[in-house]
């Protein structure tokens, strides 16, 4: 029993020791949660397909430090995003604002989709008119004649 207690105690100490080691990251959980929320929406400029929060690049660490400082200084999320955009352009935002320069980015996929749907529609309509084509009396007579010939050939 006492051995168990000792083990539990040792584990507890180990756990708290671990927890202490991670402390600097979670200095203020509130700030960190906001940092994560903001930095998830920002692009790391060094490794461009990674978000700022995921990146371990040195510039990303510096930028996170900057964001953290601004949170501490009481800046709003929008002010912090503006700060980044002022320096690195709309490119840092994973959701850039809709404006003249980003119009193709936002509307492009929908334009392509509509163009695709139009193409499909044209094709379907053309096929339908082709199927619905009716034969003139002359053509029908000729067709019947050919079919009759064929039936004769088969029976022979």
């Amino acid at each position, binding site marked *: 029993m006492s051995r168990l207690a000792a083990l539990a105690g040792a584990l507890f100490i180990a756990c708290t020791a671990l927890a202490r080691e991670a402390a600097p990251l979670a200095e203020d959980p509130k700030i960190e949660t906001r940092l994560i929320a903001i930095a998830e929406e920002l692009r790391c*400029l*060094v490794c461009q397909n990674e978000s700022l929060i995921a990146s371990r690049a040195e510039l990303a660490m*510096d930028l996170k430090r900057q964001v953290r400082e601004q949170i501490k200084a009481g800046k709003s999320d929008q002010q912090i995003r503006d700060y980044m955009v002022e*320096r*690195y*352009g709309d490119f840092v935002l994973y959701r850039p604002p809709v404006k003249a320069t980003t119009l193709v980015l936002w509307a492009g996929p929908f334009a392509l989709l509509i163009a695709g749907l139009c193409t499909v529609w*044209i094709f379907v309509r053309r096929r339908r008119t082709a199927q619905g084509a009716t034969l003139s009396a002359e053509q029908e007579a000729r067709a019947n004649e050919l079919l009759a010939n064929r039936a004769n050939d088969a029976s022979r």
Partner: protein
Amino acid sequence: MGRIAIVVGFFALVILLAVGLKRDPREVPSPLIGKPAPAFELPRLAGSERFSPAEMRGKVWLLNVWASWCVTCRDEHPVLVDFAATKRVPLVGLNYKDQRDEALKWLSRFGDPYQFSVVDADGRIGIDYGVYGVPETYVIDRAGVIRFKQIGPVTPELLKAKILPMIAELEK
């Protein structure tokens, strides 16, 4: 009719994608072009004086971001040394996130093209200037407005084709 439209649409898409592939995604257009160069006051790498961009008012000048740990800077360096020898416009170095003694050693080893360098030890001024890939070079006009930014090394071709004509234009 419809077929022609499809062929035209297809080629338009191919051209769009081809242009997209040819562009370098690392070259992010800087929002700072046409804006005043962010102010700072930093100590010089050598000596005890401090420097602020406001001191350069009335002059066209270049700000080059460099570091001794930056491999590409070493490739760029001879180009800057040659450029400095022409004494065309002042060239100021921004020593970005570097160790002072390493930086000084680097300059004495490869030559010092800068009128002087200033020390941005923790990279804060770099962030103000939107630096994300050293080396970077800024052309700043007489009014202190950033006119051009080169991300990556300055090459002799770029100097000849872009930077020198721009300096001449700005000095008019």
